[in-house]
């Protein structure tokens, strides 16, 4: 198996780190501490809990959609390094997130991004033919549902609030959160 460390990109990233360290801008310890802090907390369950709470708490839903950072703070994420924008799916609109310039995405709430999210195919095709891309993820939407694509080109990071599935009225908060997938929060799954 080929490890991450063998990739050409890893060597380039390390060269960049070494230049930054040589310039006195950071250190190996600082980089390690940052990555450890990020990846021990960053997971899709964070975004899933926010979505599930919005399904059952109208006040929280309003906050999530109007001030994502304030809503994240209520869930313990008061240190996001970006402006969080949450876009809600409705019966008539399905949202999907992409970053055509690189691979921006709310890592702290969704966990490390999937490989396909960074692929040229996903980044170039999602803005051009999202219905076909979603079909390849197994998401077939009626023609009456408009697709709204969000290209993450700024300091804002986007997350989708999926529609609450039918028949989930009796579920507790953690059971609801367990229904929400990372793809659902990107828009490449219905939930």
């Amino acid at each position: 198996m080929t490890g991450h460390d063998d990739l050409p990109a890893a060597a380039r990233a390390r060269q960049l780190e070494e230049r930054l360290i040589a310039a006195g801008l950071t250190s190996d310890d600082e980089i390690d501490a940052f990555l450890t802090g990020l990846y021990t907390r960053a997971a899709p369950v964070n975004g899933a809990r926010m979505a599930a709470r919005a399904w059952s708490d109208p006040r929280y839903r309003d906050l999530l959609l109007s001030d994502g950072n304030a809503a994240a703070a209520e869930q313990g994420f008061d240190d996001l390094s970006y402006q969080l924008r949450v876009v809600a799916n409705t019966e008539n609109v399905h949202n999907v997130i992409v970053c055509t310039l690189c691979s921006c995405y709310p890592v702290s709430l969704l966990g490390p991004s999937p490989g396909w999210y960074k692929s040229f195919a996903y980044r170039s095709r999602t803005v051009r033919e999202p219905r076909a891309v979603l079909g390849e993820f197994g998401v077939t939407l009626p023609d009456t549902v408009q697709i709204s694509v969000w290209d993450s080109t700024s300091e804002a990071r986007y997350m989708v609030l999926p529609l609450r599935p039918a028949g989930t009225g009796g579920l507790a908060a953690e059971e609801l959160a367990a229904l929400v997938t990372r793809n659902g929060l990107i828009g490449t799954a219905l939930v």
Partner: protein
Amino acid sequence: MSYDAGARVRVRTGDPDKHTRVPRYVRGQTGEVVAILGRWPLPDDSARGITPPRIETCYAIRFSAADLWGSGDHTVTVDLWESYLDGP
């Protein structure tokens, strides 16, 4: 110049030599302001080492697929700094 939600704006054309955050596919296109985001350093200035960089409002601008590609019934919303935009 600043814009209100609902305003029609046109993305500037041009192909800078260095870093910019204007995707090529919206250059010269007209869209609608759907949200006013934060005020952030202009990435073009930051990437060129210009200090201090211009701090500008960033807008979420919605384009129709039919305008961008000649076909398609979806929309694409792109975040663009004020310097990237002209009036209608």
